[in-house]
């Protein structure tokens, strides 16, 4: 599974960085960095982060066009 964060929506509430700290990290006080490919074993945490995002900015899904290579 992959994630992408709409950083226009993101307001730095950092809920994702609390709930899935291996995938989402705060870079400074407000900027968010994340791993677009969710590692095995982090899916449940990322699901929590997706649900918790106060501005619903995280999209998780199968990698687009996978198999098209």
């Amino acid at each position: 599974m992959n994630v992408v964060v709409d950083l226009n929506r993101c307001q730095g509430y950092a809920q994702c960085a609390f709930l899935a700290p291996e995938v989402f990290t705060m870079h400074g006080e407000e900027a968010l960095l994340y791993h677009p490919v969710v590692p095995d074993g982090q899916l449940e945490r990322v699901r929590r982060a997706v649900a918790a995002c106060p501005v619903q900015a995280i999209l998780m899904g199968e990698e687009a066009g996978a198999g098209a290579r």
Partner: protein
Amino acid sequence: MRGEVRDGRIVIVGASLAGLRAAETLREKGFTGSLTLVGEEPQPPYDRPPLSKQVLLGRVPADRTGLPRRRDVEAQWRLGVRATGLDPIGKRVLLADGEEVPFDRLLIATGTRARPWPNPAEAALDGVFTLRTSDEARRLAERLDAGPRRVLVIGAGFTGSEIASACRERGLAVTVAERGPAPLVGALGGTLGALAAKLQRAHGVDLRCGVTVTALEGDGRLTGAQFSDGTHIDADVAVVALGAIRNTEWLAESGLAAGPRGVTCDAGCRAFDMYGIVTDDVFAAGDIARFPHPLFEYQLLSLEHWGNAVAQAEVAAHNMVNPGPRRLPHLTVPAFWSSQFGLNIKSVGVPTFSDQVVIAQGSLKDARLVAVYGYRGRVTAAVSVNQARSLAYYQRLIETAAPFPPAPGAADQIESPVPVPSDVPDPKLLSHGPTVALTGHMPDRRLTVVQPAR
């Protein structure tokens, strides 16, 4: 009618963010016909913003920024092949491998590529890079891993500044060269440009403004660079961050209003032909599109913004499968973000569409603030630095054309409430191209005309 627009053959040229979101939206809106995505790069759609951040920091491999899909698009993917031409009469897209793909409706979403170093021999030196694609990011990240002695970044727009930030975070020596008076000044004006300059220097960047790089030197490998002020530096990596070139060359014979400034379209994403007649079966979205925006006096805007690619793709897709009266305008307020030197910079509106600016909240000293931009007495943009939660308020002011300067009363208005000139320079004075190109009429400012290619 209904069945007609939901059926047939749709081709999307450009398989990045805008192309993908358009394809998903087409299916979501009930398009049942055949769908083909053509992409020049061999990879499936991936996200570019991480390339100058996570990837250059070495935290995420360049080939691991694939975009998640919202839904299955049931498309034929033609990846790794470039579109070379468009036959508007025969309604066919010509591909580099000689194939032709027929369409009933076409979406042009070919975006941009990095502007290369103008001297081809110097550009070919080992150690000279541009950064736009995942492949370019991979090669640059590998070179940064190897620990170069000094990195030269040419151009201090957002991409150049983010590259410099990543290099400093990795402990690499960095020189930034910018022809304009400050970093980011082309997008954010003089006040925040001055802040950006201060921050870069505080983070150890050797920032040189008001100069150009006159030569990249080396014999096979880059060894240094010569500046217009007569100085010279040793450097083994140079990143050319001079902005973007719109991928419109393949449309040269198409008869569309397509040129260096993009493909001109109406507010419903329908492309114009070179005579200014709107087409009804060719659409454009994303960085390639150049469209009128009512909030900015119907000037034609070209936005190199992630959010615009998504929003415009959704509108284009909707309009491709809906008859005239049901079509939607693309009206979203432009917005973008950048993170660099530990700061989160976010913008709504168009800061370059301004004559004045005021720090409405926070302070330059703390590098936590909201700058609000106005043009002839109304609010046209706002930029936050580490204060993103306030931005929604100013977006509403922009949308309602609220008077500038904004009403006083913010608890944290610390700086002077008196606006100062926004000092947005003419883009011609900058090293890098603008990420927002205002290309319409503003008699006291810059004036350009539609320029079909050739």
